[in-house]
């Protein structure tokens, strides 16, 4: 899974039917110390109610994403926010 910080939200009124009504967050990857990891980011479907500014865990793999969203093998989704992080302890 990826550590990231929610930096924004996406509103898209015209999109593939699978994504209609699904909250999408812009999540920039962070290093364990909290700083951004370059420009790396992902737009992920939110299923935990995360908000802008929060540090989150993102599952960025299709099969897991499909299971998490309870969709069949045709679900065109890969990235899902699976947790909100309270604390990171990592050696420097």
């Amino acid at each position, binding site marked *: 899974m990826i550590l990231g910080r929610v*930096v924004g939200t996406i509103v898209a009124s*015209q999109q593939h039917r*699978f*994504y209609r009504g699904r909250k999408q967050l*812009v999540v920039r990857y962070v290093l364990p110390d909290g700083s951004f990891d370059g*420009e790396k980011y992902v*737009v992920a479907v939110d299923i935990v109610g995360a908000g802008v500014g929060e540090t989150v865990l993102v599952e960025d793999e*299709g099969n897991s994403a499909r299971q998490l969203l309870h969709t069949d093998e*045709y679900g065109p989704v*890969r990235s899902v926010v699976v947790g909100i992080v309270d604390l990171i302890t990592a050696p420097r």
Partner: protein
Amino acid sequence: MKLGRVIGTVIANTKVPGMEGLKLLVVRPLTAELAPDGDPFVATDASDQAGPGTLVTYESSREAALLHAPRFVPVDKAIVGIVDQHAIEEGS
């Protein structure tokens, strides 16, 4: 998913079966802050409405092909949606 900007179109008269009647769009990948970020690529459009100038979300690899399901379209990049609003909070 990631963010991108449609910057052009591609015409390919010779294509493999499964790609008939599909728009082929040139997309420039963007960072979370909408700055250009890497080389442009060609994507199909699963949002149905994208065109040059549009700000879009896109998927890659297997999920790109899945966006066109049940139709089998052998692509590795596809546009998911058109971004109406993309709100990034500075300093978050």
